[in-house]
């Protein structure tokens, strides 16, 4: 009986001439070989197409996955098997309309599938259709009151959080908790969603249950601290945040909270330390301003001046920033003096006083450490004069000598300067020498490969370019630009089939990268695939139209005679494109001209909320009172 159970599948495969599929942990290459062979033997093998497509989709080979799914469909595979994977694949390829059709079809055909509803909801969220996402999720949840799969419920809670349906997320997380009352993941989710629902008491209860079970969750400690703070349990809050900071020293929010708490207590020295840390990382105006105030109160005059200068510089008040930075530069502490001199230099740069900028950087970097040399090199590059560019090369070369581990990155800069000055032979030599020291640096391989490719008027350079770029993608398989370059190399070398594979993978990795479509269209044209050429060209044309519109609106908004309508049009465009930070900057410009614009104020408040810029949100709300 047992034997026959084993024999049956073997017999099936033998009778059908199909070898057994590779195990799940086999390499992608092994699986690719297996399925390619299988399809070659039997081009009507629907299962092969679908199984292969599923694997390709998981491996990020979306173009190829799409092709195989469409082939399976053409062979008669039902939509129940095709639509779920195809929808996912198409959404990863940023082919929105097609993805939507497939995902909606999948959800309709498999109404009980949590994967289908999550894929559809996720698609709506990515397309910024939050309402549609909420609708889809809430309808499904209501239709499946007895759904109790733990992993599925977690995914549903996360999906509800991502579309800002706090109430539903909180309700569902409580259901999850009923199924797994001591599960740390469930407790964390419950606490978060309760906080989102401003039910601090509930959240506190969950965290107090969670922390003894999982004390080393930085996020949970941080959240607990927030709750205690709101309950005016300041000692408890500080303790929790210090624990969070200990567990995750690179989280800027925690520093901010710690700093503010110390400031509240009047322990300005500790506050100054914390806020100094965050301002160094944050590099935004509010952080710099807070750090300045804390340092001032702590009596750290030099630091206060430095942060004041930074804050002024960030606001564009370079003349004032310069005065304050010069005060800070009088510090007798070498570290403080150095960073103050850099602030002086940045002020000069803002004032477009290049000579003084360079002089200040030279003063700041007298120690000639590697960082000093690189900073000086950068300043010389910014100045970009006949005198400074050779000095830049000297600094870079010295830095490379002192820090061989940074040789690759430095050589790339040197080579770029040599290339720009027409010394392409020297640029090649520089990179070739660096490659000896760092033979596996993908950026170095890519850069030298690109230089050979640019000068590919002889077969030897073409060969070298190909070899280096193949190595580059081996070490950086997620770098779409390396794949693009490799595709171009294969095309130059008349290996069109390989070029197609590489360029399709560019789209897999970055479906929003227009030049990938252009190069793929060229290759399809070369191999005579007119239909694919036209498809790619249609997609590329869309990308070009978008970029051209962006360019035109930006030029209009940045012009010396830009009207508020022009700035708003640009802001709206950026918002639609998902560039929330960019849109915010444009709307802020309008508020600077007309602070009473209701629509813009509303938009700004929403954006501040989504970007987590609490201080700015509060300031805007306060200005309305």
């Amino acid at each position, binding site marked *: 009986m047992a034997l026959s159970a084993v024999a049956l599948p073997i017999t099936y495969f033998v009778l059908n001439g199909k070898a057994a599929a590779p195990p799940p942990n086999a390499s992608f290459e092994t699986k690719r070989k297996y399925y390619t062979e299988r399809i070659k033997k039997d081009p009507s093998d629907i299962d092969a197409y679908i199984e292969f497509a599923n694997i390709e989709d998981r491996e990020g080979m979306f173009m190829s996955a799409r092709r195989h799914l469409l082939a399976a469909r053409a062979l008669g595979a039902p939509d129940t098997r095709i639509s779920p994977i195809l929808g996912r694949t198409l959404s990863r390829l940023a082919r929105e309309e097609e993805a939507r059709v497939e995902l909606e079809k999948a959800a309709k055909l498999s109404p009980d599938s949590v994967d289908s509803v999550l894929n559809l909801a996720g698609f709506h969220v990515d397309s910024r259709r939050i309402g549609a996402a909420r609708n889809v999720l809430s309808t499904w949840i209501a239709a499946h009151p007895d759904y109790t799969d733990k992993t599925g419920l977690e995914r549903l809670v996360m999906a509800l959080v991502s579309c800002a349906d706090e109430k539903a997320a909180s309700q569902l997380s409580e259901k999850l908790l009923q199924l797994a009352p001591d599960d740390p993941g469930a407790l964390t989710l419950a606490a978060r969603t309760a906080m989102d629902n401003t039910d601090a008491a509930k959240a506190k209860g969950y965290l107090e249950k969670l922390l003894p079970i999982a004390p080393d969750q930085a996020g949970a400690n941080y959240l607990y601290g927030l709750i205690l703070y709101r309950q005016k349990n300041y000692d408890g809050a500080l303790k929790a945040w210090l624990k969070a900071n200990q567990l995750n020293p690179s989280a800027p929010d925690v520093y901010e909270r710690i700093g503010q708490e110390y400031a509240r207590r009047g322990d300005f020295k500790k506050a100054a330390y914390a806020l100094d840390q965050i301002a160094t990382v944050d590099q935004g105006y509010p952080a710099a301003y807070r750090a300045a105030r804390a340092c001032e109160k702590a009596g750290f005059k030099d630091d206060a001046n430095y942060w004041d200068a930074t804050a002024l510089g960030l606001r564009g008040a370079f003349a004032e920033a310069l005065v304050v930075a010069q005060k800070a530069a009088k510090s007798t502490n070498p570290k403080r003096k150095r960073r103050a001199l850099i602030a002086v230099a940045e002020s000069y740069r803002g004032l477009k006083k290049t000579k003084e900028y360079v002089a200040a950087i030279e003063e700041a970097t007298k120690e000639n450490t590697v960082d000093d040399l690189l900073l000086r090199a950068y300043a010389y590059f910014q100045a*970009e004069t006949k005198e400074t560019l050779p000095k830049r090369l000297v600094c870079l070369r010295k830095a490379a000598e002192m820090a061989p581990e940074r040789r690759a990155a430095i050589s790339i800069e040197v080579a770029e300067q040599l290339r720009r*000055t027409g010394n392409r032979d020297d640029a090649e030599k520089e990179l070739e020498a660096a490659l000896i020291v760092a033979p596996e640096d993908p950026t170095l391989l890519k850069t030298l490969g690109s230089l050979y490719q*640019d000068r590919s008027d002889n077969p030897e350079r073409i060969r070298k370019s190909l070899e280096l770029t193949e190595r580059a993608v081996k070490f950086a398989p997620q770098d779409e630009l390396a794949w693009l370059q490799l595709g171009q190399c294969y095309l130059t070398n008349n290996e069109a089939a390989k070029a197609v594979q590489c360029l399709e993978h560019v789209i897999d990795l970055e479906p929003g990268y227009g*030049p990938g479509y252009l190069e793929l269209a*060229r290759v399809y044209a070369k191999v005579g695939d007119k239909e694919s050429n036209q498809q790619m*060209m249609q997609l590329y044309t869309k990308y070009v139209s978008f970029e051209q519109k962006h360019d035109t609106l930006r*030029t209009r908004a940045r012009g010396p005679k830009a009207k508020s309508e022009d700035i708003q049009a640009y802001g709206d465009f950026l918002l639609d494109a998902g560039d929330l930070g960019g849109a915010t900057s444009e709307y802020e410009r309008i508020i600077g001209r007309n602070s009473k614009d209701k629509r813009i104020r509303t938009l700004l408040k929403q954006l501040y909320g989504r970007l987590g810029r609490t201080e700015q949100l509060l300031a805007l709300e306060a200005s309305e009172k």
Partner: protein
Amino acid sequence: MTQTQTTITLTMILGAAISIAGCNKPSDGGAASTKPVTFTSIASEAGIDFKHENGSKGRKLMPETVGSGLAFFDYDNDGDTDLLVINSSGWAWDKNPLQAYSALYQNDGKGKFTNVTKEAGLHFSLYGMGVAVGDYDNDGWDDLYITAVGDNRLLKNTNGKFTDVTKTAGVKGVGLPGLAPEFKWSSGAAWVDYDNDGKLDLFVCQYVKWSTSLDPYCGKNGTRGYCPPGTFEGARNTLYHNEGNGTFKDVSKPMGILDCAVGKSFGIALADYNGDNWIDIAVSNDTWANFLFINEGGKKFVERGVETGIAFAENGRAKAGMGIDAADYKNDGNFSLVIGNFAEEGLSLFDPMEGGAGMFENNAQSRGLVSASLLNVTFATFFFDYDLDGWQDIYATNGHVDDIVSTYQSNLTFKQAPLLFHNEKGKKFNDVSKAAGMNYQIVGRGAAYGDIDSDGDLDIGVVDNNGKFLLLRNDGGNNNSWIKLRLVGEKTNRNAIGARVKVKAGGIEQQQYVRSGGSFLSESERTLTFGLGGSTKVDSIEVIWPGGTSQVLPATAARSTYLITEGKGLEKR
């Protein structure tokens, strides 16, 4: 005289006769001459004293970097090539603005010129950019369309005298919304009979939406410089239909010219790029996608720059795109495009892709054009056969736009030497600039070719922005054989613009279009020059007139100029 002396004398005479016969006359079917060809600067001795004035006074207004162009054409129908150089001027709003004038020079047939601007009615000041030459009213006299910052001008030529008919014709140019008319900035223009109705229509490029108030401070290291094109919005192009009664109608919208995004257009290259016998329009755009307007049966244009691959470089980035020209430089029946670009970009050379679904690919690197041109800012560029070996070579005139460039980019200079590339039988181009004597450093802008001394080879005229005009005489090009063909339309437009001429000689078949435009803001002479290398005759000539009628002409001797009238035969001039 003794018998010996007679023999010696006879031998000497015969020897001299043989050597004279053999001097400039290669044997029939013999190899092309490879003697070096040089270009000699002769403006002064030729009587050309032109200086371009760009009106610069330190405010760094963008149009000051661009002008201007020139045209070689026969304004007085005396059979030789005259010269018109366009001038810009001081700005009208300046106090006591400098008045500068374009200049028309009459050729005496041997390369000596006389300034006849006033007599010809062309003595007026404007901020001139470029010029297009075309007999729009088919009266046998070439008229002029001059582009400018401000209103453009249409000058009707009657017996060698020009009259400004811009207003009645309705072609002063189309303004942009929100922009005062004096700031309208037109650039390249070309005459083209797009609907094959026998009358020349007009295509006019605009560059950017510019005005003094839109031109901000741009600078480096505290010194003001000229702003790059990215600082400004693009502008629309215009297609005017010739109504036949001295007026023109703006048909840009119905003809699809406005369906694409606005560009930053400079140059125009006319040819049939998709093999359907309708003339298409390639337009070079500065830091913007190049356009390729495909003519759909004279009823509409569809812009396909992106789909055909000429819009962008390989990395999807738009290059500068100033001068542009088209030619069948491989003598394989396909027209390629050469485009001048900015420093660190190199020239572009778009060849039709083999089997490539109507796409082009940039082969500048593999054809040897990039290395030499990498540090240059190329404005005018054109194909021409300077050594008359039957293969179209490339000339490029260069000069940066920023007079302070060398203070921040040590590898670049404001004044730059031109480039001359020799075509190695369609496989590669060799930089022969130095050998050809092209060692002068200028701020090169418009350039064109014409046979100013009627010796068969092609000479070059170049505008130096804010400098003296250069006239470069070709010395040695006519060591090889040649034939010149001037076409006159009867049913088609009189200039025969749009006619394609195929010449077979020495085992190769060359083809050229009779056209307007090409290069940068300039026009070369309309008579077609075919280099024949070592051949002493042409095996056959075929003319495909606009509209598709073909006219085949018999074998004919080289080293002569012929007139081909539509429907009639060949007539030696």
